[in-house]
């Protein structure tokens, strides 16, 4: 037991404030709604944050190196539509189609990385362009139409519960989270990201390959968006070109609530996951209480301001 506590403390070091926020929200909704505090609803929440969470993992790395990726949701839609289209129009077996979709997402991420490091286009602009282009492409393949009627196994990824409670989609989120956490915390490649975000020129003069690393980070972000695209297809059992529209804002919000700084050099997977759950719990809880998505938007906006202001305030006090 004691070991578990020390381990938990280690994992969440530096994110206690956000974790406390999550606990307070959970307690609040448990008291406010009779439906909130149940195993069934928690699985629900986990299910709802899967796609958000996977994209937030990539975004964490991007924000740590001092960048931003506005194109994640568009790349998700691109991967989704490529997957559906090659399956539907060319009869490519669905599992290959999924791989092609994820590959397209990675290529889009790679293009982001190349634009940013070799053409020196600011990340905001490069990924803004990709946001527009990838969404446009996603619509072009099927002329804006949906694709449905997938084999049953795809839907089963998000429906069939293994070990009695967990579908494949959630397993993917959990394994990716663990991999990213280890990479960022205990691997040389991950620690280098903090140096790049702290000061790219210092990192370069310290012998870090800043350009190469930047390209890899954006490619990984695209790759994860691609996986998120396939998982969302499984959940919806449909490919829709406007899927996850404006989702990038939730992704960035989750990472920022989780304690990452848009100036770079600060952030972590544990914080991001807490941030993802804060957004998930908020949306779920407000839903149960009967608030409209419009109200949810206002509340999430307020939470972002509150979380970041608290963080700044704490830093000042030190």
């Amino acid at each position: 037991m004691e070991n578990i506590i020390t381990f938990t403390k280690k994992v969440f070091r530096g994110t206690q404030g956000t974790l406390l926020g999550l606990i307070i929200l959970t307690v609040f909704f448990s008291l406010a709604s009779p439906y909130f505090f149940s195993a069934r609803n928690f699985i629900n929440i986990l299910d709802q944050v899967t796609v958000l969470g996977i994209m937030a993992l990539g975004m964490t790395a991007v924000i740590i190196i001092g960048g931003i990726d506005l194109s994640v949701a568009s790349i998700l839609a691109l991967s989704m539509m490529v997957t559906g289209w090659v399956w539907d129009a060319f009869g490519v077996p669905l599992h290959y189609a999924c791989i092609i979709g994820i590959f397209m997402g990675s290529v889009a991420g790679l293009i982001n990385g190349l634009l940013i490091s070799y053409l020196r286009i600011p990340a905001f602009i490069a990924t803004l362009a990709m946001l527009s282009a990838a969404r446009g492409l996603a619509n072009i393949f099927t002329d804006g139409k949906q694709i449905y009627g997938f084999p049953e196994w795809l839907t089963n990824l998000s429906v069939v519960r293994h070990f009695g409670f967990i579908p494949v989609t959630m397993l993917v989120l959990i394994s990716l989270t663990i991999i990213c956490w280890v990479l960022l915390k205990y691997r040389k490649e991950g620690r280098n990201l903090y140096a790049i975000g702290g000061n790219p020129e210092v990192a370069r003069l310290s012998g870090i390959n800043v350009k190469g690393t930047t390209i890899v980070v954006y490619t990984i972000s695209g790759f994860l968006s691609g996986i998120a695209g396939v998982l969302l297809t499984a959940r919806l059992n449909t490919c829709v070109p406007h899927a996850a529209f404006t989702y990038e804002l939730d992704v960035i919000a989750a990472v920022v609530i989780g304690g990452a700084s848009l100036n770079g050099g600060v952030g972590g997977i544990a914080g991001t996951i807490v941030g993802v759950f804060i957004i998930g719990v908020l949306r779920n809880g407000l839903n149960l209480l009967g608030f409209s998505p419009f109200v949810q938007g206002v509340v999430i906006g307020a939470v972002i301001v509150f979380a970041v202001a608290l963080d700044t305030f704490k830093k000042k006090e030190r």
Partner: protein
Amino acid sequence: MSDHQGLIVKEVSKSYGNAKVLNEVSFEVKKGEVVALLGENGAGKSTISSIIAGSVNRDSGEMSWKGKDYNPSSPGHAIQNGIGLIHQETRLLKELSVAENVFVGKLITKNGIVDFKTMNKMASEQLKRLGLEISPKQLVKNLKMSSQQQIEIAKALTLNSELLILDEPTSSLGESETKFLFDKIKQLKREGVSFIYISHRLEEIEQIADKIVVLRDGYLVSTYDNANIPINQIAHDMVGRDVDRIFPTIENKFDEEILRVENLNSFDGSFSNINFSINKGEIFGIAGLVGAGRTELVRAICGADKTLSGDIYINNEKIHLRSPQEAIKNGIVMVPEDRKSLGLLLAQSNSQNISISNFDVFLKNGWVWPNDVLSFAQKGIDLMGVKGVPEQNANELSGGNQQKLLISKWISRNPKVLIFDEPTRGIDVGARHSIYQVMKQLSEKGISIIVVSSDLEEVVGLSHRMLILSRGVQKNILTNSENISRVEIMKQATN
């Protein structure tokens, strides 16, 4: 408070939390006088100047300015009273014109529209007063570092300043620019402007100051009514102990070539056709004026900038430097000129700063175990005697300790060639001394060192041999000896 026409500071104290940073400090600055304010980092120089310039409030004590009580509530208030502070690092808006910078915050308007014509005219008058041939319409980013600083002075003068506080004004200037600045100070002095002059370069104090005030640990240690005080005595006042020799005696025998540079040319012409070789354990100085291509040359050698042509050999083997990464692999490392923007991750821990470039040295299969990092960092910190702990952020260290941290980061990996670009800029006497000692020890251990410095005294005092650069051209390589003259080096560097 009488008819005193200058500034009187009387028993001013200031504490931050429990730390008393100023203890009843008193001194005065008369009209048209240059008072040198000296002390180590942390002695209280910045605090007292910030109090005078209105950006920090005092806890107790009195000040008077031109015979009246003086209690500035903000920097703006101090400026209105004719007192301006010019920071070590210039704080200009680089994308705006000279005139806009001069009038920032007080733009002159006519019927609500910015009146560029009048502003340009007024700015131009002050620039002429300083003897500067700079158009007020020019953008600041296109100006040289030294001109930028003079813009700051012009700005203060346009606002009718009568007392200027100069914080380390010469730290980024070369010899001739320093002389130019001193001429201007003397001229303004005659016009009745007073100065408080803060510097670490004790050598220049006697050229410029009328009076010396020395602070140590927040206390006023001594006041001298003239500036003809031996440097050793001032240094003694500052550090509270004898600083017998500034430079260590360095004696080595050389027979093994480590680094050789052949026909090195830069892309932009900042240096051309450079040839030299350095032996094991040798300290090699590069002397020249600001803009002679010194920094560009060493940046090329450590892989930071690409070169047009030329070869670099380590142990007689040709190496290809396309990035700092490759230079580091080959044992060439650099402690850069500007440690804040090129050397340190300021908002990150000392242990991250030391370990980041050395993962290849101490990691097993790329795994970063916190205990390994911590012990590696602690070793580095002990090696240089950095006053700090691994967990602390680098921006919490003093300038001298930051520099030591940077040095320990590189010597932790046992380099072959260690390049120091301006090793003691903005560093106090005590820390400076220990950095010189470290260079000596490294040299004795067989590490070759390249030293670049605007401080000719420093280059001559440290190096076994010196390369003299003038406008990117290699003028000479001198072997250091007793009879080497500073004047001769200066002559070669300027022609």
